[in-house]
């Protein structure tokens, strides 16, 4: 069951069980997902031990209602999908709708990053409302990083790992493909 040569199997067993509980505690207590590096460092685990402890955690969670989820910025605990309908029924206020204007702005940033505010205005043909940008900043989905080397040195906008986390992506490559023009013609 274990390939650790220094400890008896039961000792390792107990140890891994404890570590899997410590991981569970840290994931619950943390406000952000935790990376493997952080978990290994904080709990003094080897790669092998971490993998095994995470497996045990997953196994233990399976009897309950939570699931271990690996996102762009690390591991997090979330309520299993099976119960989403129940949550949506009882807590309708937790179901957040995003406006078309916000989604379009976010899409321009996500697909064309880095972009300036005026890039977004050009693509959408509308003055960018500061309200929409503020919402995106508040959610931590976008950041300003660097400047475009043009007149006024406007700030460049990028998406963040939290954006990927929120949309269940681990990498920007996983964004839905941009439809080509024929597909758009067919749609309209």
């Amino acid at each position, binding site marked *: 069951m274990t390939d650790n040569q220094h400890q008896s199997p039961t000792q390792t067993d107990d140890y891994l069980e404890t570590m899997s509980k410590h991981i569970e505690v840290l994931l619950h207590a943390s406000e952000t997902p935790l990376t493997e590096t952080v978990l290994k460092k904080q709990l003094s685990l080897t790669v092998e031990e971490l993998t095994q402890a995470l497996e045990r955690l997953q196994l233990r969670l399976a009897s309950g209602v939570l699931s271990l989820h690996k996102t762009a910025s690390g591991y997090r605990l979330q309520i299993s999908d099976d119960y989403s309908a129940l949550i949506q029924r009882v807590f309708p206020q937790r179901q957040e709708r995003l406006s078309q*204007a916000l989604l379009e702005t976010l899409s321009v940033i996500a697909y064309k990053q880095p972009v300036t505010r005026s890039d977004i205005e050009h693509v959408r043909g509308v003055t960018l409302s500061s309200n929409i940008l503020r919402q995106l900043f508040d959610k931590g989905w976008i950041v300003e990083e660097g400047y475009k080397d043009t007149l006024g040195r406007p700030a460049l906008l990028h998406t963040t790992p939290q954006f990927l986390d929120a949309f269940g992506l681990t990498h920007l490559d996983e964004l839905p493909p941009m439809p080509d023009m024929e597909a758009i013609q067919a749609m309209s």
Partner: protein
Amino acid sequence: MQTSTTKQSAALDKAALSASTPDKKDSTAISQIPLRIYQTPVQHLPDDLYVPPGAFAIWLEQFAGPLDFLLYLVKKNNVDLTQMPILPITEQYLAYISELDTEHFELAGDYLLMASTLIAIKSELLLPTPEVPSDERDPKAELIERLEEYAQIKAVSQRLDNLVRLERDVFLAMVSMPSTEVMSAELPSYSPNLLIDSLFKMQLQPDYQMHTIKVDTVPLSDRIASISRQLSTDGARSFYELLDNNQGKIGVVVSFVAVLELIKRQLVGVVNTDLESRPNDAGTDADKGAAENDHIGQLTLQWLA
């Protein structure tokens, strides 16, 4: 396609919309049905979209902007985007925009800008075109390009919205921390020196007219307070002993400024030490050389108050 239809039907009175959809071949048939829009009986519907007075701005707000609205017009005319007949579309666009009243300036700006673009393209098309210099962009082609780019972004934003999203489709598990009594028992305690330091700070507000270090990672007032506390308890210390190893280089600089400030206020004095009286100075010549370059570190400071 599905979403844009629902969007418009939500914005418009249903009857008005059904009359406006291009696939409705016979709009006169509708006028047989008794219709009421905003309590007003409607005798006959115009050929084009019927917009109740004042509702236009509200209806327009359902579009994400003039490009979105243009896309709608292209679709309504049932034409290929790349073959967009600029003249009729411009006429329709302007007809709608003329409904926008001054009450909706904030909405109007972007739409009027597009209107001027359309008019510019239209007049260019109507005028007999001389040889167009090859380096000049064709404004119609440019507009179609923008429309295409916008259509792509609109489509992709809907795909993005279809992804499984946190806090809409899946939810984070929330739990409370262990009981506060237990948690606070685990808190590392505050150092009692904080109390004394606060009293020193209360008395020794640093003189902010002198040069202060911009990066306040080690606040000067903190250093003045803790150096005063150490010297007043121990009587005398070397400058080295007064440093806090965790504060790094900037800590050395701020500590030095703090000592200067305390000397200026005559709270601290420098004990005159010469080379002979220095402790641990019996080393090699190399050690001696290093030590001689390090007078400041070896300076002994004394509490005078």
